């Protein structure tokens, strides 16, 4: 089911576990098996909720049921023995009542007299020795509130979290020269990350007055920073430890900081460990989602499909607090034009506040919204011009030396054309498209047979590798490698294994740099008292950015050992450790080569490099019910360099299916600012039966600023899956759906509106 081009070698490799039971044909030479795989496969792996802390109490969060209100009082009803539990309100927060993020606008708990800004906002906390007492206590806490007027429509919001305006060329001249001007407005809704492990944190009071938090998270140092500020503790008295984490997808980037504060407040109040384990309902109802967006496109093209003018306006709904909205919007703004050359461009954007739960990080981080819009829009343009979707992309895709709307010259690692051609070839796109057209032409209107219409669609995308702009330089991440006194090699990073393979690929990269096998390299558990702050596990940056730091640290460690011993590292490091003891090398981030990015003008090298992706989807649409079945998908992704083939393919396949879910079935319905389908019974994600066959083709167009050439893989496939499916639906039905997900209702409405009959 999987095609491999970069290294077709599929000879069986020896298994690490267990010896003597080799299933041939899968592992490849030099590629170790998933490091923590055996634990996950036997049930031995311990996730946060699996950990036992004797005497631990259970914690819960009392949340608002208003979208916007003044909190007048928190009433503890008579008749309950309040001495059997602890209750924590904002008044008991020892430090600042803030969840530290980009801005300091979000409180850990709404104070009495303060403003409730969204449904399910945390107001107070309660912990009890057992779940039944906890349940009884929760039922006896009443919030008294005074309703305030709420804003739910982002177009009506007057509170702007961030806005950008980038322009290049002469827009009016571009439109004046165009043969055709096409306009369209595209909408996308919330998407839930839906990691299968719910959020979970356990806080333990330390004997030194500090706090230790174990939990499911992507970014231990984000939680660390938030805890220090809210609890008024220093770094030494604040310890955050990431446990085995059952998926993140951005959903465990920021909200775990909130939960860590809550668990810690309760643990300090009752003097015992406190478990804050969300159930699915609370996790969906309260935690961050992908930003909804409204994207308006106006494009001028020549008859041959050449883009000459692009005007794009983006409005993102940030929800009630700022969270990461400015950087989500920033990435969305920079990616909005798609991977296409256009001399005259203007992109304006804003992220605004509404009285809905805050939106935040989700794989793709602002790019999937805008890339759906530009890809669907380009598809409509191609239809209007009567040229194929492949041809219009060929005509406009960035090539080496092209300049983006934000003035970045693409100097290397530009593979948009390559991924496009590989995808078209693998899917036999034009021939398949001719077949779907023939099938539509031969179908009679009402011949009694099931009216199943086939369609094929194509999307092309790009994804800036790592943080946007000067983000990485400002963060100044540090990674380390140590040779212990016992002669063990250990990578020290705060980057987390959340399923993507961190624990497997870092020993590969470090081992390669040191000249030892990956099995000789350990990776420390992310524990803020042990590992340096190598930055968050986000933005597809772990392998590209932190991998570079670790490789550089390994090279320095190796040089030091070899200089001292006069022999190759692999032969001498144990002896070095015995005679000289512990050696640790820390490596701090140095900016990538290039011109840098100007945050004031929003121009320059916004990203060190870009990843490029193409996706071809084949669908069948039932013309009576408009149900869509996604049959086959080809995903071609240029990730710079493949470190571990199986793991990289896994990222592409998983990201592609999340994108297909985004395009077809995943939708949050709101009423008065509350999510209506906040359960797994009502928020649907694709099952194995909904999922198509996904053929992955990895392309390697290495980036010279990385010692290994890698550009990141996690988010890239998320950008192209939904528009490919929407294009296939348009091919099958004649209707371009401009709002995700492309539900049967929306397909039917679009067909009715555009007068398509069949």
């Amino acid at each position, binding site marked *: 089911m999987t095609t491999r081009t970069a290294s077709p070698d599929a000879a069986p490799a020896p298994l690490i576990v*267990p010896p003597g039971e080799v299933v041939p044909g899968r592992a490849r030479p030099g590629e170790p098996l998933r490091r923590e795989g055996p634990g996950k*496969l036997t*049930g*031995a792996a*311990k996730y946060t909720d699996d950990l036992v802390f004797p005497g631990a109490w259970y914690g819960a969060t009392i949340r608002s049921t208003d979208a916007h209100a003044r909190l007048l009082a928190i009433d503890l009803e008579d008749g309950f023995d309040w001495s059997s539990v602890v209750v924590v309100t904002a008044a008991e927060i020892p430090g600042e009542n803030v969840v530290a993020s980009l801005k300091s606008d979000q409180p850990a708990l709404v104070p009495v007299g303060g403003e409730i800004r969204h449904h399910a906002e945390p107001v107070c906390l309660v912990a009890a020795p057992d779940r039944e007492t906890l349940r009884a206590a929760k039922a006896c806490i009443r919030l008294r509130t005074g309703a305030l007027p709420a804003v739910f429509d982002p177009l009506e919001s007057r509170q702007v979290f961030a806005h950008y305006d980038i322009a290049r060329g002469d827009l009016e001249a571009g439109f004046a020269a165009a043969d055709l001007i096409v306009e369209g407005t595209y909408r996308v809704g919330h998407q839930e990350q839906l990691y299968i492990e719910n959020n979970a944190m356990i806080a333990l009071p330390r004997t030194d007055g500090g706090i230790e938090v174990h939990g499911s998270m992507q970014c231990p140092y984000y939680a660390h920073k938030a805890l220090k500020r809210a609890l008024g503790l220093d770094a030494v008295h604040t310890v955050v430890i990431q446990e085995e984490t*059952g998926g993140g997808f951005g959903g465990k980037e920021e909200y775990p900081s909130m939960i860590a504060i809550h668990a810690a407040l309760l643990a300090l109040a009752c003097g015992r460990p406190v478990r804050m384990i969300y159930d699915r309902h609370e996790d969906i109802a309260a935690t961050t989602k992908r930003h909804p967006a409204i994207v308006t496109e106006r494009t001028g093209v020549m008859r041959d499909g050449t883009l000459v003018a692009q005007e794009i306006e983006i409005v993102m709904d940030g929800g009630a607090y700022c969270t990461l909205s400015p950087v989500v919007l920033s990435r969305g703004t920079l990616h909005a034009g798609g991977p296409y050359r256009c001399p005259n461009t203007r992109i304006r954007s804003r992220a605004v506040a509404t009285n809905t739960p805050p939106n935040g990080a989700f794989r793709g981080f602002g790019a999937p919204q805008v890339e759906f819009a530009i890809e669907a829009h380009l598809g409509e343009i191609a239809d209007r011009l009567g040229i194929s979707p492949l041809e219009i992309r060929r005509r406009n895709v960035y090539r080496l030396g092209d300049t983006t709307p934000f003035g970045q010259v693409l100097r290397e690692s530009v593979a948009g054309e390559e991924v496009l051609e590989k995808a078209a070839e693998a899917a036999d796109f034009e021939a398949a498209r001719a077949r779907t057209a023939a099938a539509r032409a031969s179908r009679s209107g009402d011949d009694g047979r099931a009216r199943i219409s086939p369609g094929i669609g194509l999307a092309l995308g790009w994804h800036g590798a790592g943080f946007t702009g000067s983000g990485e330089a400002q963060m100044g991440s540090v990674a380390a490698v140590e040779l212990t006194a016992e002669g063990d090699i250990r990578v020290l990073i705060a980057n987390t294994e959340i399923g993507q393979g961190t624990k497997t690929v870092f020993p590969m990269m470090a081992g390669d740099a040191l000249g030892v096998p990956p099995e000789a390299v350990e990776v420390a558990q992310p524990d803020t008292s042990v590992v340096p702050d190598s930055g968050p596990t986000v933005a597809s940056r772990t392998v590209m950015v932190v991998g570079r730091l670790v490789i550089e640290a390994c090279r320095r460690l190796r040089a030091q050992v070899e200089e001292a011993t006069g022999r190759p590292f692999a032969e001498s490091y144990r002896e070095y450790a015995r005679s000289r003891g512990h050696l640790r090398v820390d490596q701090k981030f140095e900016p990538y080569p290039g011109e840098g990015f100007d945050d004031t003008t929003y121009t320059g090298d916004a990203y060190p490099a870009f990843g490029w992706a193409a996706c071809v989807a084949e669908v069948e649409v039932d013309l009576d019910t408009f149900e869509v079945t996604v049959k086959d998908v080809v995903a071609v992704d240029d990730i710079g360099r493949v470190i571990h083939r199986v793991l990289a*393919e896994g990222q592409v396949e*998983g990201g592609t299916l999340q994108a297909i879910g985004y395009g077809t079935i995943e939708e949050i319905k709101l009423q008065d600012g509350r999510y209506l389908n906040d359960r*797994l019974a009502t928020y649907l994600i694709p099952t194995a039966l909904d*999922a198509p066959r996904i053929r992955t083709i990895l392309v390697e167009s290495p980036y010279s600023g990385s010692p290994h050439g890698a550009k990141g893989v996690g988010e890239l496939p998320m950008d192209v899956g939904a528009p490919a499916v929407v294009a296939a639906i348009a091919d099958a039905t004649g209707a371009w759906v401009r709002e995700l997900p492309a539900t049967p209702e929306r397909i039917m409405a679009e067909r009715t509106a555009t007068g398509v009959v069949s």
Partner: protein
Amino acid sequence: MTGVGPYRFVLNGEPAEVNVPGMRRLLDVLREDLGMTGTKEGCGEGECGACSVLLDGAVVDACLVPVCQVDGHVVRTVEGLASQVDGRARLSPLQVAFLEAGGAQCGICTPGMLISAVAYLDRGGGPDEAAIREAIAGNLCRCTGYTKIVEAIALAADSGGGSVRV
């Protein structure tokens, strides 16, 4: 509520006995009373399949089964899939196939996914993609896109099934 037991059943080939309320979820009995935390909770309402276990060989969601219903029956969990050789876990061919093919990523759906795969293979399922997808349709995975899970089960079917072969 049914009484407080004792409830006796066979768990991974060994006798188990608990004295708990009869309506306590099998999931909580396994995880909290018996310390078998391999079975995971993803939704608590029978949608995700993370808590799948075998009850007399049939796949059930342990979050929906009260312990009184397993009294006298046979339960198998992920902890029962590997064999023990000299105190070390020896993975079953199915587990090896998952490891090799990349069928486990974050790992939280993996125990339930393996249980559904074992049931499929034990009833003679082969390496047929459509049949495998049907067999795991009750187990949600958010990481893999299912492609490598289907491949892993097909590999295991080719190599002789999912049960422990000691």
